[in-house]
Structures are given as structure tokens and as C-alpha cells.
């Protein structure tokens, strides 16, 4: 069964074998880059069409089904439309910055895929500080978004840029803080070691994933909330709030540059989702020992698409938060809880070491959960200022 699991690795070695020894390192990285770009390129195309079809189905309509069999060639049509559309650059805008913004957004995002372990020893470059590299790359998109908004010389894009900077910086902190307990427990920054730390099964049943520990579940939820905000998706799509500020920082872009922004946004979403899968859902590990026979990259793909479906589902349901609510959610709710989560992870680890608690698993769960749940609910309730009792309405005859 392992040859199906290692099919891509053997393929790579076969291709590299065809080339003389001096060129081999170059060719192998080139092939890996090509592989990642094609896989995630088609994944981008598929996601645009799947998002519109799933949104459609949730709204009792079909979604695009005219171009190709049930709409599968729609991304091709969109691509051609984007390429042939005239690329308007407003006269009063700053031409250089207006041109650079989409590039500064999309190029770094591709680098983030270098450190993600897609399958058993299928990692492009196994940096021992992989997580640090990922977050360093991830923070380049704020600059790009602000450049886009500022260059447009348009009031709405300026508002959009201000909102984008406020949102993405203030959600960088909970994003990183949510990843810190994983690093604490795994003891290494390398994503391969983190996935390795989540291998194995407890008493032959539950996998040893981080998400199945109390601190892991809390960190996973916080990571997802921060990830939605980082990739400007639904409850946090303030930078391009369609109904308020037309299209925010995207207002002045059309044609290919708009397609690049679109690509950058989705690649950011894929990168953050694959990181969430690696950190919390046990990377490419199978959920049950009996399912080990399926290849490791299949499991990575399955978890990845489950999370993408979750993001689309959230987008179909939730209205948008206001600027001050979004910021107070980040600074007053997520950051304190993330810090508390560090304490919970420490208690989890310490109680695991010293066997102090009898019947340890259930009690450890309760203690760590208690540390997180009670302050969380009290903080949440006091934060949003909603009256506890629902409102009453009088009726006049």
C-alpha cells in the first residue's frame, strides 16, 4: 500500500533520475514548484466554481451550470473574461504602486506552500523553523492591500484600505497566539515534527490530533476565526464590504490585476487552511488505524476540502461585523482567551507528566476546559453588550 502513498515521491525521483547529476537539485525543485502550482492552480479554479455552486444551492438556486458539464468550465470562461477585460488605471492614481500591489500580494503567498507537509515525506522544504517562515510570509499581504487601497485615489478604496490594515494586523496576533500551544506541546517549529507529534492513536481508537485536546479545540476555533479575518472572508469582509464601500480596496482594479487579487485572496485562504490542517487536524494522518491503507495525501486533501466547505458555509449565512465590533472581538476576546489557552496547554502537559490526577484523561479534560469555558462565556457576554433577556413586544388591540 505504501507505493500508492509514495506515488508522487517515486515519480519525482524517476524524473530527477533522467537528468545528469549536476542539474538534479535544480530539476527537483523545479518539478516540485510546478507540481504545487498546478495542484493549487486547479484548486483555485475549482474553488471559484464550487463556491458559487454551493452558495447557490444554499440559496435554493443552481449556480453556474451553462459553461461545460454542470458549469465546470466556468473558471476558464472567467479567466478569459478577466484577461480580455480592459485594465483601467485611474489617471490620478499612483501608477507604480497601483501596478505593484497585486504582485506584492500574490507572489509571497505562493512561497507559503513551501513548508506545508502535503503527505508522508511530501514537503517541499522541511525547514526546522517552518511555522515562523509561514507567518513571516503571511504578513506581506497587509502591505499589498494597503498599497492597493492607497493607490486608487478613491475615497471608498481609502476607507477599504484603512479597514484592511486595522483588521489584518489585529488578527495576526490571535492567529500566532493560537499556534503557540501547538509549538509548545510539539516542542519544535518544524511542521513535519508537529505532524509527527500528532501521529499514533490513543487506546487504538482516537487519533492523537491536537484538536481532540481541550486546548487544541479552543486554539482551533480561535485559529479559524482569525484565519477568516486574515483572508477577508465573510463575517470579516469589511475591506471589500460590497454594500458599504462598493468594493473597498478592489474598487479601482479591473481586468487582469483584479484576477490577480482574486487569485491572491484564494491562495491566502488555501495557505491558512492547509496550515490549520497541519497544526490541529493531524496533517496527513488517517483518523482511524483501520483507514491507514488510504494514501496520506488523500487525507490531507479531505480535511482541506472540509475546511473550505466550512468557510463557504459561513459565507452563506453570516452578515458582516462592524469595524469597532471586529476590532473589539480581536483584542478583547480572542487575545485574552489565546493567552489563557497557553495556561490550559501548560496545565494539560503538566498534569499528563506527573500522574497527579487519578483516572487522568476525563479529569484533565474537565480542568483544562473549565479554565477556558467560564472566562470565555463571561468575557463574551460582557463584550457584545447584548441584553441577556430577549426583547418583549407589546401588542395593541
Amino acid at each position: 500500500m505504501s507505493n500508492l502513498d509514495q506515488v508522487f515521491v517515486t515519480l519525482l525521483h524517476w524524473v530527477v533520475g533522467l537528468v545528469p547529476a549536476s542539474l538534479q537539485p535544480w530539476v527537483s525543485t523545479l518539478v516540485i514548484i510546478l507540481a504545487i502550482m498546478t495542484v493549487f492552480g486547479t484548486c483555485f479554479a475549482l474553488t471559484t466554481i464550487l463556491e458559487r455552486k454551493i452558495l447557490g444551492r444554499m440559496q435554493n438556486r443552481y449556480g453556474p451550470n451553462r459553461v461545460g458539464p454542470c458549469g465546470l468550465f466556468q473558471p476558464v470562461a472567467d479567466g478569459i473574461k478577466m484577461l480580455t477585460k480592459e485594465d483601467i488605471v485611474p489617471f490620478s492614481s499612483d501608477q507604480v504602486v497601483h501596478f505593484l500591489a497585486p504582485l506584492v500580494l500574490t507572489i509571497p503567498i505562493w512561497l507559503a506552500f513551501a513548508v506545508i507537509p502535503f503527505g508522508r515525506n511530501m514537503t517541499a522544504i522541511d525547514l526546522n523553523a517552518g511555522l515562523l517562515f509561514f507567518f513571516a510570509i503571511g504578513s506581506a499581504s497587509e502591505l499589498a492591500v494597503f498599497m492597493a487601497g492607497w493607490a486608487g485615489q478613491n475615497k471608498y478604496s481609502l476607507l477599504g484600505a484603512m479597514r484592511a490594515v486595522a483588521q489584518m494586523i489585529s488578527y495576526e496576533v490571535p492567529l500566532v497566539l493560537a499556534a503557540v500551544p501547538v509549538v509548545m506541546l510539539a516542542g519544535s517549529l518544524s511542521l513535519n515534527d508537529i505532524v509527527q507529534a500528532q501521529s499514533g492513536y490513543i487506546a487504538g481508537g482516537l487519533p492523537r490530533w491536537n484538536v481532540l485536546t481541550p486546548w487544541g479545540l479552543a486554539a482551533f476555533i480561535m485559529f479559524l476565526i482569525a484565519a477568516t479575518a486574515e483572508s477577508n472572508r465573510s463575517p470579516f469582509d469589511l475591506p471589500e464590504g460590497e454594500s458599504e464601500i462598493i468594493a473597498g480596496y478592489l474598487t479601482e482594479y479591473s481586468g487582469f490585476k483584479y484576477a490577480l487579487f482574486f487569485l491572491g485572496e484564494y491562495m491566502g485562504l488555501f495557505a491558512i487552511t492547509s496550515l490549520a490542517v497541519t497544526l490541529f487536524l493531524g496533517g496527513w494522518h488517517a483518523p482511524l488505524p483501520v483507514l491507514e491503507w488510504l494514501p496520506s495525501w488523500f487525507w490531507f486533501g479531505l480535511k482541506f476540502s472540509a475546511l473550505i466547505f466550512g468557510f463557504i458555509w459561513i459565507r452563506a449565512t453570516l452578515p458582516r461585523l462592524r469595524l469597532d465590533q471586529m476590532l473589539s472581538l480581536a483584542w478583547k476576546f480572542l487575545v485574552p482567551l489565546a493567552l489563557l489557552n497557553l495556561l490550559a496547554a501548560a496545565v494539560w502537559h503538566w498534569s499528563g507528566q506527573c500522574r497527579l490526577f487519578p483516572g487522568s484523561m476525563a479529569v484533565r479534560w474537565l480542568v483544562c476546559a473549565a479554565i477556558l469555558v467560564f472566562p470565555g462565556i463571561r468575557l463574551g457576554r460582557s463584550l457584545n453588550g447584548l441584553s441577556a433577556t430577549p426583547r418583549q413586544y407589546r401588542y395593541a388591540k
Partner: protein
Amino acid sequence: MLGSGIIRGMIETGRNFVGSYFVKDRLTTVQYPEEKLAPQENARTIPFLVYDGDDAAAGLRCTACTICEQECPPKCIYIIKDKAKKPDFVGKMQLFPAVFDIDISVCMSCGICAEVCPFESIKMDQVFTLSSDTRFGSLLLHKEQLAKSNDYFRKIHPTDATAIDAERAETKSKAEAKARAAAAAPAAPAVPAAPTKAVTP
């Protein structure tokens, strides 16, 4: 619980997502060019002139009384009366329109002309694919393009058409009965009728 409202909302969209594959009522889209929705019986778009029999010019019911031209709010009907006369379905000599234009770029399909017409000659059609390339030429429908047969009228508005046909048949039979009685009557009293000039109704 803090997020319970959001979760209930997610369940609702989830139910719609799953439902759209199984529950017929959830997916109401009609794929227009392939599946066409049958128009409601009373639907109305632009007016058309009804003619009996098969020849449009002869069987046109319209008697150019211009009531519809006066009552049309946006004033898009334009009638010129013809000098000659032709008998209508009861045999009475009636005028008929030489020119009957409706400017369907001005018409707002309100149906007032069909409502006020005393001769049941202008009715509301159900055709809505009316776009054309030239702005003026083809949006001005002349008498020939407006005239459609009574069977077409019976096809698109069955209940109204049958009611009107029954009523016309009844007036026609009453008129013939009166005509026969009038024809039979002068033979009996043989009173020398005063030389009246041709009685125009």
C-alpha cells in the same frame, strides 16, 4: 450560549443546502430557454386586434370608434378612419380603420384599451419576446401586424374568449331573428312604408 444564534443560522442554511438536492419545493429555478413557464391565463403584454374568419382585412372587428385612442393614458394608439363601410358580424354597416398603429415602445401594457373597447375588438396578447434592432421602425406595429385571429384569442384567453363568443353568437341570433321578423312583417300589413332614406344606424 454565546454562539447559539449563529449555529442555528448555519443549521438553517445547511438544511437548505441538503434540501435543494431532495426537496422539490426548495429548488424553484426554471431554466428559461430549455424549460418555459406556461403564462398565467390572464397575463397581458401588448394589445392586438381580433378578426373573425380567416381574412384579416374583412373580419376585423374594430369599428374605428377611437374610444381606446382617447382613453389610452400614454397616448400610443393612432387611428385614421376609412371613408368606406363594411358590414359587421350582425350585418350592420360599420366604419373600419384605414390606419391603426400602436407604438409598443410607448405602450405600458396597462390593458385600459381592452377594458373600454365596446366591440371586443382589442385584446391583450401574451407574447413578450418583442425586442428589435431598430429603435423606431419595428416598434411601431401597424394594423396588419396587430391583427390576430379569434382562434388565437381563444387559445391564449380561453374563458374570456368563450364568454365573448357566446355573447356574440346570441346577439347575432337575436339580430337574425329580428331581421327575419322584419322581413316577414312587411309582407303581412302591406302598409306603404314612407320612402325613408337608407337607414344608417
